[in-house]
């Protein structure tokens, strides 16, 4: 195993996702792993982070004592605003999302299926948090990346032939990034395009419920690359 192979799985996923973020774009990061993505981006890239609650240009959590209850992220946590930030109402915020003005959203997932469809908002009878802004994000963002741990804790695949959990949208997501692999859903199915350092194609296949298309050699994730 390489040095990066020992990386915390969530950190690895966040770092790989960061390489997908292009300079001067508008990006929305979901809660959980996606939130970590911004830690791996250079502040000089000119990326503006949007949050559903109405801020474009969200910055890091401010130092203790410098927070304000009028400036929070979509989870209600204190944030700061970068120079050039703007604040908008919820209709405008979802206008940006649904209207295709958001270049990228990185979201967590409960399941992704062979069609590239995502389920990430409820487990009937078990967990019903509500969809919040997820359905609009998956429907409207120019690019959707699902960032998630590859399999459930008990080993059950989260990448499945067809979602058994309620869908978030009928849209095919653009990329799935896990601690094991990078998978690109296309018209003909799920393409395995990278494996994590030290992980074999066979190991990814074993942990995946859906068929994976492999074309030639599958390169290892480059975790040093940025866009």
């Amino acid at each position, binding site marked *: 195993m390489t040095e990066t192979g020992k990386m915390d799985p969530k950190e690895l996923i966040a770092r790989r996702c960061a390489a997908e973020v292009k300079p001067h774009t508008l990006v929305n990061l979901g809660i959980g792993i996606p939130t970590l993505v911004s830690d791996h981006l250079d502040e000089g890239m000119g990326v503006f982070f949007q*949050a*559903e*609650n109405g801020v474009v240009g969200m910055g890091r959590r401010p130092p203790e004592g410098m927070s304000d209850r009028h400036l*929070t992220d*979509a989870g209600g946590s204190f944030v700061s605003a970068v120079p050039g930030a703007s604040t908008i109402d*919820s*209709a405008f915020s979802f206008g940006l999302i649904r209207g295709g003005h958001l270049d990228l959203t990185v979201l967590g997932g409960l399941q992704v299926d062979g069609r590239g469809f995502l389920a990430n908002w409820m487990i009937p009878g078990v967990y*019903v948090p509500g*969809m919040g802004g997820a*359905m609009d994000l998956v429907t409207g963002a120019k690019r959707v990346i699902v960032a998630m741990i590859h399999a459930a804790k008990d080993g059950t695949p989260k990448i499945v032939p067809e979602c058994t959990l309620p869908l978030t949208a009928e849209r095919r997501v653009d990329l799935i990034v896990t601690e094991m692999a990078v998978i690109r859903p296309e018209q003909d199915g799920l393409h395995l395009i990278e494996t994590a350092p030290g992980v074999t194609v066979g190991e990814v296949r074993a942990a995946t419920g859906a068929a994976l298309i492999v074309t030639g050699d599958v390169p290892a994730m480059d975790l040093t690359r940025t866009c």
Partner: protein
Amino acid sequence: MYQALTVEEAVALIPDGASVMLSGFMGVGTPDRMVAALAAAGKTGLTVIVNDAARPDRGVGPLVKARCLRKFIGSHIGLNPDVQEQMRAGELEVELVPQGTLVERIRAAGVGLGGVLTPTGLGTKVAEGKRVIEVEGKPYLLEPPLAADFALIAARSCDYVGNLTYMLTATNFNPIMALAGRVVIAEPEEIVPVGMIPPDAVKTPGALVDHVIRRVA
């Protein structure tokens, strides 16, 4: 021109069983004094339209805890165990609406449109039982307008003609809900003399506001 009301006077206008829009996002930009007073007054059977259930002590939380609600219409309830519990017990009806659809349904009611044609929710549970309308070859869900008897608005500043400003992410649903309540009650952090808010800084014109809550003494 308004005679500012006490929070108790304002809350007395709201009968049991009313539908109430409550602004705020995870409790940020929620009119907390009105929420507390509604809970204290022991209102019952309210239908609340609010983005999220926040947490038990934030946003709509105190109204849930005090069992003021019959129905909750919103996009997220994941961080409020009280809602989950009352929902499972059959005491609270919950209607989950995608957040962008929720705000557009409220806006549609407020600006006199007949509904929302949105791609959000197509092919999901949200689409069940709803009409799909095709426009220029693309399908959209038809979502109906959503109005309420009351809209409770948290403003940063207010003047005595009812003009409102909001601050940063405490804006969220406020300006949209202020369009869609049959009676609009604003709870500002401060009330300033008429003319002190520049016309371009007003986010809700006073013409939309029916009552203003007095400052804390």
